[in-house]
């Protein structure tokens, strides 16, 4: 594989430099450092966790984006996701449902969630694998006695981002052993399965070819530490499962549903490939 080619050494890069084109960084991630609001340092590069056999260093997707896109995440006043986060903060304090409760009436300040996202997904007491959307909807239906939110709806993903923001800068560390092990293995098997008529696995692009261009896209390692992420292409916060669904659909496959057990397992596995990077939501991507 041409995996180990150093950034900056490809012929394409040389041509881009010579012609002065604002081309994406061919060949690998750039060397930029991410410090948000001048005070929160984000780990965008770390030694790969022990369970990863084929990658030695993990990188946030932020390192693969253009300077213009990167800049939008460096200051919360420029981050277009923050409008949605503000809306979620308002929803957090709003009483809804037959029980007369708001999020705040049980949880107090949203800052009480600091650290939670760094360890999600995880296995709950009932033995099921649980992601943040599950926790939110369980609170809504059981404690607030109101309607569940749609998985990738703006209200749901804004709340997932708000809760994640409380852990921003903390290091991702999801458990993959013990009760999580079978779910993790299921997700790993999916990661290496070549789905669809194009017969492509997650690994084909994001393990074997990260750093390379596929048509106009600069392939990243497919990390999810920045999700929900504000995708400029769609002009809204995008859920992890929505991105999984789109990727598998684009292999010309019958994809899986958002909120499916398959995607919960894949979420755990992909999150574990980012153990060591910072929680970065709400990130901004192209």
């Amino acid at each position, binding site marked *: 594989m041409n995996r180990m080619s150093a950034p900056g050494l490809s012929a394409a890069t040389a041509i881009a430099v010579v012609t002065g084109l604002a081309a994406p960084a061919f060949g690998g991630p750039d060397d930029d450092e991410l410090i948000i609001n001048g005070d929160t340092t984000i780990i965008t590069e770390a030694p790969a966790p022990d369970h990863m056999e084929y990658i030695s260093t993990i990188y946030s997707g932020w390192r693969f984006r253009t300077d213009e896109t990167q800049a939008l995440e460096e200051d919360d006043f420029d981050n277009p996701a923050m409008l949605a986060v503000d809306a979620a903060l308002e929803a957090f304090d709003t009483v809804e449902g037959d029980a007369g409760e708001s999020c705040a009436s049980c949880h107090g300040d949203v800052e009480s969630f600091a650290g939670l996202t760094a360890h999600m997904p995880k296995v709950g007491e009932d033995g099921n694998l649980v992601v943040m959307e599950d926790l939110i909807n369980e609170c809504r239906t059981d404690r607030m006695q109101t309607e569940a939110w749609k998985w990738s709806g703006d209200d749901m993903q804004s709340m997932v981002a708000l809760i994640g923001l409380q852990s921003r800068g903390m290091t991702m560390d999801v458990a993959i052993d013990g009760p999580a092990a079978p779910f993790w293995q299921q997700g790993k098997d999916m990661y290496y399965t070549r789905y669809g008529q194009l017969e492509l696995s997650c690994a084909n692009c994001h393990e074997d070819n990260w750093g390379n261009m596929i048509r106009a896209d600069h392939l990243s390692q497919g990390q999810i530490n920045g999700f929900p992420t504000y995708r400029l292409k769609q002009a809204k916060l995008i859920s992890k499962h929505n991105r999984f669904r789109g990727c598998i659909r684009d292999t010309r496959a*019958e994809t899986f549903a958002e909120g499916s057990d398959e995607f919960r397992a894949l979420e755990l596995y992909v999150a574990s490939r980012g153990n060591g990077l910072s929680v970065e939501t709400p990130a901004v991507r192209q």
Partner: protein
Amino acid sequence: MKRTWMLAAAGVVVAGSAFAGPPEPSEVVFEDGAVSNSLSGVPGDPENGRQIMNKGAGNCIACHEVTALSDLPFHGEIGPMLDGAADRWTEAELRGIVANAKIMFPESMMPSFYKNDGYIRPGDAYSGKAPDGLLGPLLTAQEIEDVVAFLMTLKEE
């Protein structure tokens, strides 16, 4: 009128080449990954092959760089550069690679363009949904021939 003309033209082609029609993908004979016989019985059109390199289910330059197509933007870096492909490969080998590269290179990431079964969760194009019936191959027999004809123009020596 148009329909009648097309039927007549089809008759001429069949009579002229005694070609029984394109084989089913499963019937294509590979020898060491190469396919000697034309899939369509009609010579490939390199100009149409050039178009397929850039669009639709072909989109070869999503992964491969080709200097002869440098008028088209955004060539990928996934597969090998194709300049001089006709110097390195025979027509039969190129046909085999385009039809189903995994016969010659079992681990290849390259999609198999003349294949229509044996998939895991195949979908109806990019709908994300299961297809109603059998899938067609990604490219037709003639489109494979057109791409091969274009690739045969990529000579450096």
